[in-house]
């Protein structure tokens, strides 16, 4: 099965990339963008066929490697 992981910065953590994008957008004439946040999107192809087990495994992966829990949150979707 496939897992999709979104990794986003926690509230209050500064996001230089998001800020730079917002700035560049306004310089390009895109008005009305109040905020931009950039995160990561990771797709995993798993051999596991049991959704609950897959989710548990990906949760472990997020904790152990994919996210830095000091600054990041993650969400997992299994399909």
């Amino acid at each position, binding site marked *: 099965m496939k897992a999709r992981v979104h990794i986003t910065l926690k509230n*209050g*953590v*500064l*996001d*230089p*990339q998001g*800020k*730079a994008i917002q700035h560049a957008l306004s310089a390009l004439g895109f008005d009305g963008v109040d905020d931009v946040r950039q995160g*990561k999107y990771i797709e995993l192809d798993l051999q596991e066929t049991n959704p609950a087990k897959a989710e548990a495994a990906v949760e472990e992966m997020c904790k*152990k*490697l*994919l996210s*830095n829990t*000091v*600054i990041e949150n993650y969400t997992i979707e299994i399909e």
Partner: protein
Amino acid sequence: MKTAVIVFPASNCDRDMIVALEKITGHKPHIIWHQDEEIPPVDLIALPGGFSFGDYLRCGAMAARSPVTKKVIEHADRGGNVIGICNGFQILTETGLLPGALMRNESLKFVCKDAALRVENSDTPFTNAYSEGQVITVPVAHHDGNYFADDETLKAIEGEGRVAFRYVDDAGQMTKASNPNGSRNNIAGIINRRKNILGMMPHPERLIDDVQGGTDGLGFFQSMINAIN
């Protein structure tokens, strides 16, 4: 002083660190590959700069989870000295040995230039050869050196005198223009509470010989010799 340098795939300042340690201590450091299970007893472990594992995912993330890093943590827990320069600093924050995180530079660009640093605390094993408030010039070369910690953590670090170096201008003033990467409070390097671990973005190992344009990095290594011998 016995030392070890840990080498991860795509570490690339390992040789510079080895040369500096050998020159200053008179002994060749142990060179430890990231898959090695053991680190011989040493006074100091150095995590060198570079792009361990390509800096993919997050700088230092994969190195922080390498087998050998467990041994580094054990060494630190026993009170052993550890330094992390540049990528090494990123690894130390990823392991949790040092607080905070190193984010992408505010400019989003890699920055390589000489940076003036003010020594904020000269009462550490890594800075005792400098005097407090002294301004030294050391090159930085990084893409992700923008030090972040939340307000509470930052307050603790500042309150406990754990900022080792800060980016300043030539006159020693902390200004926005002298901050090469957007670090909070212009932080260039920090130590842990126990004062046996230091992480810093600038590269003292690149400045130990006159032909390199200066020797401001020497004091860094001299400090450790003072502390350990």
